[in-house]
């Protein structure tokens, strides 16, 4: 009797599960699920002021230890050389759809008056950590480079790799020109540690952690994300189907 009940329970849950997994693997159903991403983007933008600020916290609210995630150390010979030189020769290249392509030495970038913000970092996995970031507003870099009116996205190319694939990320111009979107070189009163993206990382405070590209070497302004690596606008987007818009 128990055996039969167990069999029925297992069989029905197997059917149900098999159904969900089959749906999950069906391209048509996946595209229906995926359409919620656009809905979330439009709905969130509808209720948000363009410059609505992420909460800025006080020093007392900061995480005692700010964990890192993803790459802890890029580990390439090129990065090792930069690290050994204390990033003295690290440059931020700004190119693509700009009037004046730039190659900004890190020390120049750090010498410009910058923004300090204590904000919360929300990982897609669910944890949060609060840290203090020092960095230059991305809007000022893009204005200096003379962003073309054709540009729709800003792509961040990084020094770290997952297997043979380089990490990269992208955001649209609403987030790129948000006052809290900065290229951060300092964290919690020190230069950025290696696990947190030394020497330069993106902070895009209204999106989840994987959008905050670390080890940034190049900023590219583009009209479309098609043709850049997998074409979905980021390493995780291309490889495991994370949402490009990570506002929730």
């Amino acid at each position, binding site marked *: 009797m128990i055996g039969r009940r167990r069999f029925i329970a297992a069989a029905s849950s197997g059917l149900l599960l098999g159904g969900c997994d089959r749906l999950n693997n069906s391209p048509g159903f996946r595209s229906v699920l995926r359409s919620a991403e656009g809905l979330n983007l439009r709905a969130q933008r509808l209720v*948000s002021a363009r410059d609505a600020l992420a909460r800025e916290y006080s020093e007392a609210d900061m995480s*005692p230890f700010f964990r890192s995630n993803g790459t802890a150390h890029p580990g390439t010979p090129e990065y090792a050389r930069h690290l050994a030189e204390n990033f003295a020769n690290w440059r931020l290249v700004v190119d693509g759809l700009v009037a004046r392509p730039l190659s900004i030495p890190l020390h120049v970038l750090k010498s410009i008056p910058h923004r300090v913000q204590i904000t919360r970092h929300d990982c*897609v996995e669910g944890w949060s950590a609060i840290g203090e970031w020092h960095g230059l507003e991305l809007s000022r870099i893009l204005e200096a480079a003379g962003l073309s009116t054709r540009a729709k996205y800003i792509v961040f190319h990084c020094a770290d790799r997952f297997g043979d694939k380089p990490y990269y990320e992208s955001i649209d111009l609403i987030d790129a020109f948000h006052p809290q979107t900065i290229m951060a070189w300092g964290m919690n009163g020190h230069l950025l540690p290696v696990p947190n993206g030394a020497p330069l990382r993106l902070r895009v405070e209204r999106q989840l952690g994987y959008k905050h590209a670390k080890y940034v070497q190049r900023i590219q302004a583009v009209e479309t994300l098609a043709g850049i690596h997998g074409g979905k606008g980021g390493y995780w987007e291309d490889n495991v189907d994370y949402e490009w818009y990570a506002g*929730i």
Partner: protein
Amino acid sequence: MDQPAAMNEPIEADVPPPAPPRIVYRHRLPTRIWHWVNALTVFVMLMSGLMILNAHPRLYWGQYGANFDHAWLELGSRPFPGWATIPSTYNLAAARRWHLAFAWVLVAGLVLFLLVSLWNRHVQRDLTPTGEEVKPKHIWNDIRQHARLRFPTGDAALRYNILQKLSYAAVIFVLLPLMLLTGLAMSPAIDAAWPWLLDIFGGRQSARSIHFICAAAILAFILVHLVMVALAGPINEIVSMITGRFRVPPERTEE
């Protein structure tokens, strides 16, 4: 069997002929549609939610919380088995796609149900407790009747009893809205637009904890609900939620 027919007749005459079953129209169409849409949606939300929790199975109170911080609930690595999650093998990206798509179905259903049910007075007439019902004596009596598995019959079975009203109201007016608001409070973009969400829940990680607690409460509601349906006559109950027509349990004869 071999008895003459004449002997049987007086005996049969003593038994009153069975009354024809009384059928009433109990659940209106909006309620039935919402019920079955939710039956599907809530399970998708619970199962994809458990997969999302698999990614970081620790819960905290406050604004922040990560591996080095104190967790009030700490489960082992990937604690939820495949039969309880969508999809059945670890995949945070897919679980998020399911969860964030079906969340719209859940919210749209809740909003439409509330609008229709306020308009057709289902909320006021069937779900709102009367002054008499909320008296402690009445509630206590209802609890005792439930504990003895003596369910209402006759006309009394046509109304929701106070425990039903309170649990349905808790789900509709407390748990589901809390799920929505704590879910939104976990969104960094919504937190920027509506920072008061962080204040009412005491931080993003508190909102995440409350989200989980409310999900557990909804699961508990579903389990009790299913047990009650099974005890009250599952065929009649399920048929009534499909067709709307409910066979009234005949009045209990006093023992």
